[in-house]
């Protein structure tokens, strides 16, 4: 396999009710990514696009070929990836394979979403489509409900008093909102919050309050991937994808008795670490899938940053901040940056690449000297994808 680098990154504003279409958002992020490496449309050999709810949000299916045409990638193969919230990370993993294999030298990969166009009731319904439809939607499972069940199970399994877990969960959201104010693309770039605001919010699915939950969001993020040889001509700072993982889970109840650990994540990240030849201690910065505050705590454990049942202490101790043991979600995470689900994995990857290149000093969220980063994305009941990225200069 050939080495594969990220040579360009593009990221739109994330927000609610953005006035642009999903195609327009993707095109803006893509042209930003292409401009970073001075790439013209004729050089792009394939397009990989994460998009989940275009059918419901805009009545637009099969968005990928329209995007390819708009960007002037005429007649190139374009493929849409639907893996719920993990769509773009799965797309990046596949794009990597096509370049690593030698089939393509330069490809564009990203994602776009306009979740807020659906409104909260329909969005709650469509997001629940990532749960098993016959046996788990029937009792009324929602996506907050999924992690709410895990929160109570977590407290019970590890004998953490629910009040204590509640405090730790609040700290996760507070940190994300703090760093979100440092990210000009973040949906909540103007909104810091307090633990009391989190614990006092209205209940979405007990014990999850409003500010335990990421928002519905619109936005796009796009990367240019290139082979090592092509990358050397396109950038002085190639960031190599050195590890990949992906694994599937069954419906939530069938993940017992492993729960609240997510076995698919443990398997996926092990693949990624082994491929890169590293351990969790080698990670300088991590963007993990904090769709809900409890999801961050569980993810940090699954990824090897804390023992099972002790993930919340990372936030209590400040280990997850800049300067801490393992800076997590310095972008603001899904919670404060926003979660346009088809774009999220590309957004996480974009953030890690910019951190490794040292681009973020002006924003006040640069992790100084970061050389190795981890992306973690969870889709619905059933998909985990991980990427290890390393500075290549």
């Amino acid at each position, binding site marked *: 396999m050939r080495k594969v680098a990220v040579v360009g990154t593009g990221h739109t504003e994330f927000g609610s009710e953005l006035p642009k279409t999903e195609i327009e958002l993707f095109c803006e992020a893509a042209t930003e990514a292409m401009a970073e490496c001075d790439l013209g449309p004729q050089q792009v050999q394939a397009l990989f696009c994460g998009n989940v709810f275009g059918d419901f949000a805009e009545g637009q299916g099969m968005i990928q070929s329209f995007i390819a045409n708009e960007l002037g990638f005429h007649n190139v193969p374009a493929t849409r990836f639907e893996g719920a919230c993990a769509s773009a990370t799965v797309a990046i993993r596949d794009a990597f394979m096509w370049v690593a294999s030698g089939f393509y030298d330069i490809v564009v990969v990203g994602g776009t979403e306009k979740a807020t166009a659906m409104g909260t009731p329909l969005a*709650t*319904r469509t997001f629940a489509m990532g749960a098993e439809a016959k046996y788990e*939607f*029937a*009792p*009324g499972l929602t996506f907050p409900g999924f992690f*709410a069940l895990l929160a*109570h*199970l977590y407290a*019970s399994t590890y004998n953490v008093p629910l009040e204590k877990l509640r405090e730790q969960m609040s700290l996760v959201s507070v940190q994300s909102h703090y760093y979100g104010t440092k990210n000009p693309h973040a949906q909540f770039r103007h909104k810091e919050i307090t633990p009391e605001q989190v614990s006092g919010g209205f209940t979405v699915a007990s014990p999850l309050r409003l500010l335990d939950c990421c928002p519905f969001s619109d936005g796009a993020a796009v990367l240019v991937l290139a082979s090592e040889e092509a990358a050397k001509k396109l950038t002085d700072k190639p960031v190599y994808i050195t590890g990949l993982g992906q694994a599937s889970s069954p419906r939530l109840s069938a993940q017992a008795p492993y729960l609240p650990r997510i076995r698919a994540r443990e398997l996926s990240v092990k693949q990624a670490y082994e491929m890169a030849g590293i351990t969790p201690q080698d990670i300088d910065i991590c963007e993990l899938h904090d769709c809900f505050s409890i999801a961050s705590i569980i993810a940090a454990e699954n990824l090897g940053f804390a023992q099972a049942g002790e993930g919340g202490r990372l936030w209590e101790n400040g280990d997850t901040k800049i300067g801490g043991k393992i800076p997590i979600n310095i972008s603001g995470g899904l919670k404060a940056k926003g979660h346009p689900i088809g774009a999220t994995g590309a957004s996480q990857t974009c953030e890690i690449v910019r951190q490794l290149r040292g681009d973020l000093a002006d924003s006040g969220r640069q992790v100084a000297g970061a050389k190795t980063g981890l992306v973690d994305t969870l889709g619905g009941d059933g998909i985990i994808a991980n990427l290890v990225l390393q500075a290549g200069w």
Partner: protein
Amino acid sequence: MEYKLPFRQYHKALMKNQLLGLKCGNCGAITCPPQMSCRNCSSYDLEVTQLSGSGKITTYTTIFVAPEGRETEAPYIIVMVELEEGPWIMGNLYDMAPERASMDLIGRPVTLGCRVFPGDRYSDGPMARPAFLFADNA
């Protein structure tokens, strides 16, 4: 190969308060709700078997924000139950006020009941779902 316990058959039995599962001819594990392979060893050698419907609550949540079309159901309690025969299944609990659900629910023994979600515009027909009842305060 024939799908041993299709959804419709599971659904019809559940409507009569009977919980069907699959017993593995290879390892003996019970799988419920049904699927193509044994949840333990992936064997396709499965036989339909009737389960007790009894178990204990392992976790719960009260849903306050419901999906489109189901707003009038909220608030409602979802539970996961570990059945006597081993598998965990998801269902509802209508035996108490949803606002009062607490950690005390975890470990409570329950028995099977049934309610039907009539389906919505995105569903392929009605779906029976377990509606559990407390077994220890009847």
